[in-house]
């Protein structure tokens, strides 16, 4: 059984890796988080600032875990600005995990949505033929290409970077590239994590072709453990019933791809 902590434990940031001009990876030692399942997340406390849900990034060394953070608002920027030696608090791991199917699988991610997908890649079966599609605006926002190739070195695999401006890899939205690919390749399963509009398109595409699909969702999270309700979507709590949901469930969701709740609990449009 996985050991789950509900109280923040302080960890020292041991290493900071610049991934892009706005994305950094922070490495800590945490035996508990080192082995989380793909899709699971932790609550990361930036003392004095906020506590944010974060997917747990794969780190090759035993007993190490990491968070890959994109600098956005106040809180993620405060995290992004931390240095080696600084303290953060972590609790978790929380949430369910992707179900890994046999055969040809596609992982479709955007930005830090790649974090759970790379962990999924790490859990891939030797027989999985893995295609990773990574979307970004332009060349300087591409990251994790090497990490992906490294993790999948023993699998048949391809890593396809897609940039909207065509400055690197395939040109276009990652969803368009996936659609093209899916015309010729018969995927057995598609997994996605990233901006909700992107995931919504991926799920629609997969559902229309009858391909098994799972998406890892984001919502406003406070407790992370199914108490406060702030992460609710339809009748599920994304933190507890998810973050990973099947295409079938998502096809019936009134909220997925359309609305999410603000801090007050009011539904807002994407």
């Amino acid at each position, binding site marked *: 059984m996985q050991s789950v902590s509900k109280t923040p434990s302080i960890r020292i940031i041991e290493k900071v890796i610049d991934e892009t001009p706005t994305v950094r990876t922070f490495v800590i030692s945490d035996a508990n988080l080192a082995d989380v399942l793909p899709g699971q997340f932790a609550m990361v406390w930036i003392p004095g600032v906020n506590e944010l849900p974060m997917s747990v990034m794969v780190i090759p060394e035993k007993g190490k875990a990491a968070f890959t953070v994109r600098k956005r608002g106040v809180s993620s920027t405060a995290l992004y600005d931390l240095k080696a030696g600084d303290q953060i608090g972590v609790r978790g791991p929380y949430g369910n995990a992707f179900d890994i199917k046999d055969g040809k699988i596609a992982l479709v991610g955007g930005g830090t949505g790649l974090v759970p997908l790379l962990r999924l890649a790490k859990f891939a079966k030797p027989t999985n033929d893995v295609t990773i599609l990574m979307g970004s605006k332009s060349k300087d926002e591409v990251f994790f290409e090497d990490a992906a190739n490294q993790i999948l070195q023993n699998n048949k695999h391809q890593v396809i970077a897609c940039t909207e401006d065509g400055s690197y890899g395939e040109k276009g939205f990652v969803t368009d590239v996936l659609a093209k690919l899916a015309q010729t390749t018969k995927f057995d399963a598609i997994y996605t994590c990233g901006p909700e509009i992107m995931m919504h398109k991926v799920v629609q595409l997969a559902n229309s072709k009858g391909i098994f699909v799972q998406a890892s969702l984001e919502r406003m999270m406070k407790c992370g453990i199914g*108490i406060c309700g*702030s992460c609710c979507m339809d009748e599920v709590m994304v933190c507890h019933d998810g973050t990973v949901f099947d295409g079938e469930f998502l096809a019936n969701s009134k909220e997925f791809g359309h609305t999410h709740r603000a801090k007050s609990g*009011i539904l807002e449009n994407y």
Partner: protein
Amino acid sequence: MTPDLSVSIGPISLGRPAMLASGILGISMEVFNRIYRNGAGAVVSKSLSKEPWEGYANPTIVGIKGGYLNAVGLSNPGAPYFAEMIKPNKDVPIIVSLVGSIEDEFEFMVKQFENCNVTAYELNLSCPHVEKVGLEVGDDPKLVTKIVSRVKSVAKAPVIGKVGLGTTNYLDTVKAAIDGGADAITAINTIRAMGIDVETQRPILSHKIGGLSGPAIKPVAVRCVYEIASKYDIPVIGCGGISSWEDALEFIFAGASAVQVGSAVGDRWIDVFSEINDGIANYMKKKGYSKMSEMVGLAKRF
């Protein structure tokens, strides 16, 4: 003969004894539906204010030894938004929790629900971590009487006062609510508490002080229910640390007509409601009770 799990809390009748406590998963109609289907007798909404509130920054809820510490800051979508959301509801008994500082606010909020199916209003006189509302209201018995009687004068549904341990004697708050015409009392809310992280030397919650819930507070809550039920002739709803059918019965024997379950959802998930129902039904069969009311307050005979 299968025992009858329905309960009467004064004028309020519910099919099953355990409700979802306020502030737990309490902002979405679909979730209410799910929890009701899973065995809750009713759902109590998140405490609603006149306007939407964002609440405090995280950490707002963390686990600690014996339970949870929270200072969510009463984030809620506001009464008008919430009323709109529950308008279509027919089946689920919803108890609307309200929070505010003066009578007028409460009157405004109750009026939003005129066309809604509301089982009862629960007035939050006891949130321990937001200024000017909650406990600060509950600690002022005169204000409590004013608020309760105003709500009684405008509400079509029964009115429950929810109390907790503040800076005045909570039994005086109960008395004040009774004087205002309250139909029932819920006891208790979380207890004002704090956790400090030893490594960073910082209070863990962003608000520093919050409320303690979960098993840790159960013996205190049972005592309060016992004291209220022994002293006053008003139905009591027990709340605080209930996570099993035994816990629920402990409150019933102390004098509660029904119970609310909060934090246990974080430990046992929403299965906790059917576990409580089944456990109580078995107990009743074994001991030969046919109705819940036969068990209310049995500990008082010793």
